[in-house]
């Protein structure tokens, strides 16, 4: 039988840290357990990206557009991950009975959401790198990086803002009580269009591009394209520095919003019984 002495349990920051990595674990290990993702999450996006490359080549667009499309194709993996595995996740977890156990445990809910985000970024980065590598090889894309530190900074700021938005959406999706996949479906294609995954967002015109900039990938992708294809004609919407500042502001806003929304969700959930109901 078990020893009778009491178990020591971490609290505070240490518990927060334990919780993040514990929740990230299923996402990280999941990549090695179900190989089907190789097909669905790399081959299918590859085909979508390839079709745009052939369209641009057919109409005689500048060669730089091939690189633009390849980078956009790689970044779609992050958007899909945020939509289907972040924003919808609390909904799935409630349906599967996990949410109750998360709430009852002393591990902070915010750490659980952060764990989902960390696991999601690590897992999706692998997919993005595969898409980028294979497409670059197939379509002979050449890169001319203006500033590697700035590029890394832009990527980190984009991920922080994007996954912050995903964490905020997680509470909204759950509170809305709608079937999560309907909301995800609703958002998927319009964002492909508005965020300029397959073309420079500048082409959409100033106001639409400004509106679309609320989605962090719009500015993140635009800034990365400017930094990675430095030798090609400037098709950037705003300067990289301005886009970096906006991305940092969006990160703070979305993460703060996620914290507040999560606290509100738990309060409403406990008051109205929404944490324990399962609707089918």
């Amino acid at each position, binding site marked *: *039988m*078990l*020893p*009778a002495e*009491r*178990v*020591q*349990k*971490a*609290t505070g920051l*240490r*518990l927060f840290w*334990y*919780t993040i*990595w*514990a*929740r990230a*674990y*299923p996402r990280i*290990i*999941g990549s090695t*357990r*179900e190989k089907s993702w190789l097909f669905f999450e790399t081959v299918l996006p590859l085909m979508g990206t390839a079709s745009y490359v052939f369209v641009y080549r057919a109409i005689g667009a500048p060669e730089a557009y091939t690189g633009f499309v390849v980078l956009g194709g790689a970044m779609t993996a992050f958007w899909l991950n945020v939509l289907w595995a972040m924003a919808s996740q609390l909904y799935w977890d409630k349906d*599967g*009975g*996990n949410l*109750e*156990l*998360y*709430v*009852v*445990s*002393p*591990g902070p809910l915010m750490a*659980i959401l952060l764990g989902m985000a960390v696991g999601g970024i690590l897992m999706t980065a692998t997919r993005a790198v595969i898409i980028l590598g294979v497409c670059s090889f197939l379509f002979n894309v050449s890169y001319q990086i203006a500033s590697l530190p700035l590029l890394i900074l832009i990527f980190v700021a984009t991920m922080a803002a994007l996954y912050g938005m995903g964490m905020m959406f997680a509470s909204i999706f759950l509170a809305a009580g709608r079937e999560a996949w309907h909301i995800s479906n609703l958002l998927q294609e319009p964002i492909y269009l508005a965020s300029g995954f397959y073309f420079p967002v500048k082409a959409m015109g100033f106001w639409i591009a400004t509106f679309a900039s609320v989605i962090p990938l719009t500015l993140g992708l635009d800034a990365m394209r400017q930094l990675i294809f430095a030798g090609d004609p400037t098709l950037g919407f705003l300067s990289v520095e301005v886009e970096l500042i906006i991305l940092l502001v969006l990160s703070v806003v979305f993460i703060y919003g996620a914290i507040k929304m999560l606290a509100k969700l738990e309060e409403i*959930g*406990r*008051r*109205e*019984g929404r*944490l*324990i109901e399962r609707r089918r």
Partner: protein
Amino acid sequence: MDMNLAIETNDLGRVYRLRGPKRKGDAKQLVALDGVNLEVRRGELFGLLGPNGAGKTTIIKILATLLLPTSGSALVEGLDVTRDVQEIRRRISMVSGGETSGYGLLTVEENLWMFARFYGLDNATARKRIDALLEVVGIADRKRTKISDLSTGLRQKMNFVRGFISDPNVVFLDEPTLGLDVTAARDVRGFVKQWMHDHPDRTVLLTTHYMAEADELCDRLAIIDRGKLLACDTPENLKHRLQREAIFNLKVGPLGPKPSRDAMIEAVPGVRQATIVEQNGHTELNLILAQEDVLSNVLAHLTRRGSSLISLEKREPTLEDVFIDLVGRRLDVDTSHHAEGEHAAG
């Protein structure tokens, strides 16, 4: 505040506001708990016994900080469930019957490790306790099996390990043997009893609608129905309440069409409670009589209705009889969608 109490509720109430489209005249709210007063002592294995929809799960969800009461108060180890949420969560855990928690692609060990970390256990302690507890529940050989490949019984044993891995002071077990086969249910009950024996300072609050389970496991139990607490005592004392009454099981020929109220068997003087079940061409009657000699009146009544006695058995009172005596119906009647509408439980 009595520090010997692990759980205390005072006039605890919970009303659910009903959402969604409603027709005129439909109930707008559901009274799940109505002024429940409970005291569970430290070290006790306490049972909440009642039919589906009685309000048992609502009590557990309030005590586990998943749901706020709409009236009254509830304390866990002296801490208020509305204010001291984080501190309570450090001390409790919960296991529900039919639970499908965890992630199917994780192994049993990985799944348990994840939950152990949510409770702040370090790696070494988590792994040591996982090994020890899996051994205790007899599924050590399934440590590296994906949980999607486990049977219902094995999965519930894993859920039990999850519930006890964090070394909780108070454990809430909500219908823990629901859907399990006889062997798995016996193993689970055996585990709970052994754990209480080895940890005499811990407390378990168990909800069940299985009489035998409540009788076998619980030091004390409360009978609850439609959100109200009807009785609270040890199983022996509850049964003792019926010791003066005579309890009979009768198998008789078909009773025919339902008579008017004053011609029903319940109208026979001295019949305290009667449940009637029609089965394969005969009728089974469970009777609680004020005295043994009332039986002759019952037999005369049956003869008048054209029925004949097939067999008769006098027996000792069970918890089922206690429930019937208190509520007026059998425990297996679901009241969660009761026609009386506004007064049911979740």
